[in-house]
């Protein structure tokens, strides 16, 4: 069974509500005739409970109460194990998986987590069993890593470091660490104390055997990313807004232009205007006074949000979708369902 899969990549800085928006979008997309999966990264506990996600696993599980919806939480280590098994010879794979560095890199290197996410997304697309895939991206580098990871990973393996450590020709494993004629290595050796560089070089040599297949894979992944609908989520706070700008400015090389900016925790601009008018229909002067002062404060925030967001969407010619600020965090399936109700312009995407 092969289906035409629609892929959505939800990106943006940490803490802006990417996972919540991803889950809400997936709930909207899912239906009895539309098998949908949302791939989350590190969801808040109550959201994880709502989606019935209790362990890291790339294997999607059905979400209770939503017909046609599955969810998973990225397991970067498992993704990398899959990569190693798929793209290297069995004995190299075994050696790599036992390698100290491999573990450390797969767990800690931010771009490695991002690459794992892209690989897992691609595997889901290739499975042909989904109508829609919603990908919540890891927050490192404001989500940029997710798009840069395929080429960065290929560069790392085929790149300068290996060349520097092993010389121009690929040596046999036994000869890879010769000091003769390599004064820099000698210095590095006194600084780093010997065995380290040898271990790293050995690890990279093993990885190197996967290079051709992994480089080809990176190109495939980039094609999937380009075909996906990318939506960048932000709040009106200066830091995430700066990340959105970076996203539009620095992503031209991989050419994945976001289709829209989603402003989360949006306040209605009409509050700013309403705050200037007298309040009617509240006889109690104290209540009226407090609500007026409160509306003035929040109206000012609404105005500040508009100022921050105005221009960004216009400058890059993409729509701005405003998801309202709600007092109760939407973590249950019902509240996630209505979170996106009435958001102007959303129907074009979900």
């Amino acid at each position, binding site marked *: 069974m092969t289906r035409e899969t629609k892929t959505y990549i939800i990106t943006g*800085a940490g803490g802006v509500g990417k996972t919540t928006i991803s889950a809400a979008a997936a709930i909207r997309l899912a239906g009895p005739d539309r098998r949908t999966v949302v791939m989350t990264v590190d969801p808040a506990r109550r959201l994880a409970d709502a989606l019935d996600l209790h362990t890291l696993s790339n294997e999607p599980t059905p979400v209770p109460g939503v017909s046609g919806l599955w969810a998973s939480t990225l397991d970067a280590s498992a993704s990398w194990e899959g990569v190693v098994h798929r793209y290297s010879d069995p004995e190299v794979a075994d050696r790599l998986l036992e390698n100290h560095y491999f573990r450390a890199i797969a767990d800690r290197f931010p771009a490695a987590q991002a690459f794992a996410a892209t690989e897992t997304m691609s595997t889901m697309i290739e499975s042909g069993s989904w109508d829609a895939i919603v990908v919540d991206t890891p927050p490192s580098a404001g989500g940029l890593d997710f798009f840069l990871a395929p080429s960065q990973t290929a560069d790392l393996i085929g790149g300068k470091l290996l060349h520097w450590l092993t010389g121009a020709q690929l040596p046999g494993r036994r000869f890879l660490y010769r000091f003769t004629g390599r004064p*820099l290595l000698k210095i590095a050796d006194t600084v780093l104390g*010997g065995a380290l560089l040898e271990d790293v070089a050995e690890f990279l040599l093993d990885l190197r055997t996967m290079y051709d297949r992994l480089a080809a894979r990176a190109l495939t992944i980039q094609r999937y990313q380009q075909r996906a609908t990318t939506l960048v989520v932000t709040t009106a706070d*200066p830091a995430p807004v700066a990340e959105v700008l970076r996203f539009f400015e620095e992503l031209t090389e991989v050419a994945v232009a976001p289709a829209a900016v989603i402003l989360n925790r949006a306040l209605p601009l009409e509050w700013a205007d309403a705050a200037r008018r007298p309040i009617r229909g509240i006889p109690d002067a104290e209540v009226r006074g407090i609500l007026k002062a*409160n509306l003035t404060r929040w109206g000012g925030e609404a105005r500040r949000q508009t100022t921050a967001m105005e221009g960004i969407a216009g400058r890059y010619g993409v729509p701005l979708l405003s998801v309202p600020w709600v007092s109760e965090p939407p973590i249950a399936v019902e509240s996630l369902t209505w979170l996106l109700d009435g958001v102007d312009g959303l129907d074009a995407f979900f």
Partner: protein
Amino acid sequence: MLDRRLLFVSGKGGVGKSAVSAALAILAARRGKRVLALSMTDQIGLAAHLGVDELTYEPVRISPGLYGTLVDRSHALDEYLGLQLRMPRSIPTRQLSNALSVLADTAPGIREIVTMGKPIFEVWREEWDLVIADAPPLGQLQSYLAAPQTITGLVPTGAVREQAARLETTLSDPAMSSLLLVTTPEELAVQETREAIAHIDAERQILIAGVIANRVLDPLGLNRDVVAATPDGPPRAAGLLHTGLVEAQSVWLESIPHDPRLPFLFGFHTPGEVSARLAEVCESFA
């Protein structure tokens, strides 16, 4: 909080680490200390909150007693090799650091130790009464705090190993260094903070000076039912949002009952205004 020589400030991304770092630096300088505010990340947050366009590798004077700087990756590696490790002059540090910067991208702990080394190195220089480091967010902080141990576990001998051991000693000395965690009164931020505290305490990496709850809303002064009974429209909607948010935050504030709170600032536009106001509030507890 401001009595030791080195204060790291961390928290979940987006909770206001840079604003709090800048506020505490401003406050400490106002009290007559010679303070270095140092950004450990590439982001411009700390610079903006200190009211300058950018920070440079060379500390810049911001106001009397207050200086700002950042860890610039390439320079930091140079400095780490040249000054911190006391590499002899005859060695081409720049060339070596170019080569090592590639290694730093892959080998665990190298990037982190270089970044962690900078604020500690500044403390060793004895030029500052207080170094405030705007640290990486909680998600990455673990690998930074663990970097000295990672390195000593990885590198059996040599100068790097000795240096890592020295860094670890300064970090874990409660008379020298402490860590302040910033959170907002929200589920994800509070939970991440509590998990980090448990982990750091278990590993005894650094003394935790406290938690600051940032962007805490004051109660509206009206019961939610009273607001709900008013006619439909913006005054009611804004009132319900406010009372609802206050109710939602109270759950998370209860779980960190004794920690200082910083207010949600309405009507403050520039990062510089925000940190100046927060510095005034910090006066009462820092």
